[in-house]
């Protein structure tokens, strides 16, 4: 189950990469807001079809859980607006590294404290070592992006 889930997230990361490469091209033709709108609207249509047809009955619904639990979408939309505003000003390489740092740091904090109703997974020696390795990875991604910038935009890692 654990390995299956890891495989699933790695594959979905690859999917995300393909998606941002495609959306990047679409966005440069029709505008960022338009391409984001298409993503969210198609996503809503598909997930509605799936949930309506296949999802088994649950004790709670989207309308009966506490409201704060369904605010996830706001973070996604705010993220998109910040990125669109920041990339022309601080550059893609810096923005990419800043986003990934924030993402990784917060994810480890959520695990450690079990925030938002998640299972507590404490920071330990292995997790600190992993953080050091991730910092190395970020430096390498930054250098790779600043080098690529002189040729032309690479896919996905420049969001």
């Amino acid at each position: 189950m654990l390995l299956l889930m890891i495989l699933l997230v790695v594959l979905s990361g690859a999917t995300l990469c393909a998606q941002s490469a495609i959306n990047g091209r679409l966005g440069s033709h029709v505008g960022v807001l338009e391409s984001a709108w298409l993503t969210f609207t198609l996503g809503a249509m598909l997930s509605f079809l799936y949930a309506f047809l296949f999802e088994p009955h649950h004790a709670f619904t989207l309308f009966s859980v506490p409201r704060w639990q369904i605010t996830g979408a706001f973070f996604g939309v705010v993220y998109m607006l910040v990125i669109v505003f920041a990339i022309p000003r601080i550059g893609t390489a810096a923005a990419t590294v800043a986003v990934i740092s924030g993402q990784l740091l917060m994810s480890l904090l959520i695990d450690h404290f079990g925030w938002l109703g998640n299972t507590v997974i404490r920071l330990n020696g292995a997790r600190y070592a992993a953080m050091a390795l991730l910092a190395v990875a970020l430096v390498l991604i930054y250098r790779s992006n600043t080098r690529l910038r002189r040729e032309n935009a690479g896919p996905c890692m420049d969001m």
Partner: protein
Amino acid sequence: MKHIWLLPLVVAAGMGLSVEAGLLGPLGEEVGHGWAVLGIFALGSLLLTFGLIFGRPRLALMFAQPRWLLTGGILGPIYVAALTLATPVVGVGLTMVGILFGQVAASLVIDHFGWLGSAKRAVDGHRVGALIAILLALWLIH
């Protein structure tokens, strides 16, 4: 860099992505993963529709594009569904590192073969190094 003040804002935006994942996992357990994914996309779609109505939408232009350029919207739900399925089982940290690994690996492959209309490019040593470091981190966290 004269816009250095933007960096903390961008870091915070990245943190928001993990908060989104942290909200999605427990929500999916409670209401069903499909409905949790719908919650994200329906709210996002409504907000952006507002933005478009009061902006200057170029939707006609969008539907003049080749259809494969519109498939990003089909790939999006796969990512969100993976978030809601995986975070309750493996935690938010491992989920995010796994996604990063998939992204860097895919960027190398797309570059190498010049897929999706990107320029064909030799494999980049820095990214291979980053990929190995992330793989080790993934193994350590797991």
